[in-house]
Each structure stands twice: as C-alpha cells, then as structure tokens.
C-alpha cells in the first residue's frame, strides 16, 4: 500500500494505517530529532509527540501528497519546543572523543578509524553549535535529503531563504577546514588545531 493510500485511511481514523506510517517513519524521525537536539534521551519522546500531533491533526491535511514535509514540519517544531522545555544542553562531543581515546587499544588500524570518527564528530559538533535556523537546514538537506523546495515547505519560508541559510551554513563549516585537507584525495583531512567559529574559539 502506498503512502497516499495510508494517509487517506488515517484521515478516516484507521489506526492500523497510522501504525504502518509510524513504522515507516520512526527510524528517520528519531534520528532527525536526535541530530536536531543532540539529546538521546529526548529523541524518542520527540518522535512520539510528533506522531501524536500528526494523528490528531491529520484530518486537516489538505494536500496528502505533502504528508512527508508536513510531518517533518511537526517533527522539527516539536524538537525545538521539547528541547527548550527540557532545558538540557546537548551532549559535549569533545568529552565523547576523549572518552573514546581513553578506552580504545593503541593499534594503528583502530587509530585510523578513531581519527575518522573524531572528524565526523567534530563536524557534527560544529553543526550542533550553529544557530538552529542553519542547523535545521543542514540536517534536512544532508541527512533527510529534502530538496530546497521541500525544506522551504517544512520551514514555512521561501526557497531563497533556504538557499541563503544553506549557503551561510556551508560557509561556517568550510571555515574549519583547510584547503589542503579538502584536496586530499583519500578524503583524509585534519581539522585546524584552533578555529574561530561563530565568534567562539574552540580547540578541536
């Protein structure tokens, strides 16, 4: 059964159909919430709340072909609302890196893997420190693979606004890479020892 048919059935109050939609979206929804808030303990609750909101208001959805963007709009809004409410700060990525180094054995292959992991974490840390208007655009574009138009629909703004935010977000991220690192054919790169990001000095 395709998604449009499921949504139609949900609008008629079919709980089983809604269960199928939950199954389809849970994975991505929980992970998107986690990326947006950086809080593992909150991510599932956010997804749950978003699904509940979705079921309550699905009857009001006029263009059912836009269900996906409509659902992500609810999810993103719920994420910000619940994260603010919880008043908890995101996990400190750098603490995680230190913990990882402390616990892994000192072998060269593993170290390579650790280095990769560290780089990814550092990039996410940079994303996580961005203002939420840039962070949400980055997550929706790169992780959820939405188009500019779809993101504009989710965030209820113009295409141009999304493009502008995406450009600014990329620029902020690019500042932490050196040209040399990006030119490395093996994708190996080094993060600057110190970089100025959003006016803050961080050691990475």
């Amino acid at each position: 059964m395709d998604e449009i048919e499921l949504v139609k059935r949900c609008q008629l109050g079919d709980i089983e159909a809604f269960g199928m939609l939950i199954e389809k979206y849970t994975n991505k929804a929980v992970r998107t919430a986690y990326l947006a808030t950086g809080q593992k303990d909150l991510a599932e609750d956010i997804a749950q709340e978003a699904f509940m909101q979705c079921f309550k208001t699905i009857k009001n959805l006029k263009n059912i072909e836009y269900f996906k963007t409509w659902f992500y709009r609810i999810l993103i809004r719920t994420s910000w609302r619940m994260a603010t409410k919880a008043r908890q700060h995101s996990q400190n990525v750098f603490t995680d890196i230190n913990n990882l180094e402390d616990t892994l054995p000192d072998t060269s292959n593993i170290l390579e893997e650790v280095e990769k992991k560290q780089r990814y974490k550092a990039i996410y840390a940079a994303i996580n420190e961005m203002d939420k208007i840039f962070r949400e655009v980055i997550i929706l574009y790169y992780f959820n693979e939405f188009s500019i138009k779809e993101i504009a629909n989710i965030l209820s703004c113009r295409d141009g606004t999304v493009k502008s935010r995406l450009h600014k977000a990329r620029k902020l991220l690019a500042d932490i890479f050196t040209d040399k690192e990006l030119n490395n054919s093996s994708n190996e790169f080094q993060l600057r020892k110190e970089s100025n990001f959003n006016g803050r000095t961080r050691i990475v």
Partner: protein
Amino acid sequence: MVEQELFDKLIKKSLIDKSEEIIPQNNMKERVSHSMKYKNKSTFNTSVLNWKRAATAAACFIFICTGVSLAVSPEIQTAAVEKVTEFTNRVQMVFNVSQEGSATVSSSEITSVNGTPIDNMYLKVTKGGFSTYGPIYSREEAEKEAGFKFKMPVYLPSNCKLPTNTIDVSDYKPEKDGNKDTGKHAVSMQFDDSEAAFSGTKLLIYEIDVPEKDGYKYMDVKIGNNDAKYYETQIDMKDTSNGKDTSKEVYERQLRWKDNEKTYILIDYSGISKDELIKMAESMK
C-alpha cells in the same frame, strides 16, 4: 566542484555517523497508542480542573463584587443588615440571684426584646400557677402523674444524658383563679446535672396550648414532616443581686412544635446547634 562534492559528502557522513549513535526502539506504535489513551484521560482531568478553576474564579468575582457593592451602597447595606437580623433576637434583662444560686426574674425587670417591651411567656406561666410536685424518678411514673403519654429523645448530643434524677410534673392553674384545678399538666426534664437557671438543655411538654413569645422572631423549620418554630436569643443579663453590678451573655436556642395536641419545647443554653436540636427532636419516641 570536486571540493564541493567532497565537502557535502563529509557533512552527510558526519550526520549519518552521529545519527547511528541512537538505535530507535521497535515499540513506537505501542508508545504512541498508550500515550494517546493517557492524554485523553488527562484532557478530561484538565477540563475538570479548568472548570473548577473557572467556578472558583467566578465565586471570588461575585464575592468581591458583593463586598464592593456593600461598601458603596447604603441601601444594600441597610437591606443586608435587615436580612442578617431577621431571625436574631436580643433580650436585655435584669435579674437577682438568690443565695442558693437560682434566678428570680420578674416582668418588670425584663426591659425589652429587640428594643420592644414584652410580656414574657415564662412569666405568664409562672404567674398562672404551675405547681411542681415530685420528685418523680421514672418516665412511667411521670406519665401516670401527668395523665398522658409523652415522647423523649433517643438521640442526645455528647454533652447531654437522659434525666436520671427527676422528671418534674406540674399542675397548671389558670392565672385568674390560681387555686382551681384544671386537670392540665406539664412535664419538664433536664438533660444534664445543671441546676442553675439559664444553663443546660431541657425539654418542656405542655398539655395546654402555650402561645409563642411576644416580640420574638421565629424561623420556620421542619421536624420530619411536622412544622416547627425555632428562635435564637442573645440574653444580656445584668446581675444586680447582693449589691453587684455584673453583666453576662447567654444564648438561648428554642425549638417548639406540636405533637398529639401537646406543645413540646426544647430549650438549650449550652451551645447545642440548631441542627443538633432538630436531630434530637426528630428522634423523639
């Protein structure tokens, strides 16, 4: 261009890598379903709570409005005072206490009820000539002496007890001819050991039709299905006996009704509430 692709790839990989730190559980359907049921319940509770809040707010609003109206409107003030005093009696009297502690009150010594001079029922009765005889120690003996069967309360408040010492029986002699026997009797009993005047709780049963006290404001009440009258009086007593000049306040609560052509009067000076007196009266057997 290559740089841009590489850059995009790095961002994507970092996000995917981070997102894999969390493994969503398979019970989301159940969680949503359970949570929706719970929310429905709490929505009901919340609506009840909101209703209660609204009712409380409305009550406060009415209370404040009433207070403001009373403060600013003399007409409403007067009406409110009249309403409050509708069933309130206040008696001023002067009395002398003898050496033995019993009170003697004469009509001339009672000044007023609510500011109006009165002809007191008790005094009329006293002048008319109830002559008490006894002591009588049991209900059966009292009924035999009085010549009629009467009822007594089964329910008694905690500070009361059934009369164990005496039940008084009196002959009623009319005022104009104090020596003529009318064959009419009265029975009285005290529900405590108090012997002083204007104290304790007592029941009076008259074979004659005892009129309501002049000038008193009575309230209509029900004892079971029977109509009854109730009044409360604040008695401001001035004691001038033995050269003293002291004042004392006593509250008299009286419930009176007719049953089987007898007049029953339940009088309390000990602070028993109106509801308790009605409860006593309702339990009469």
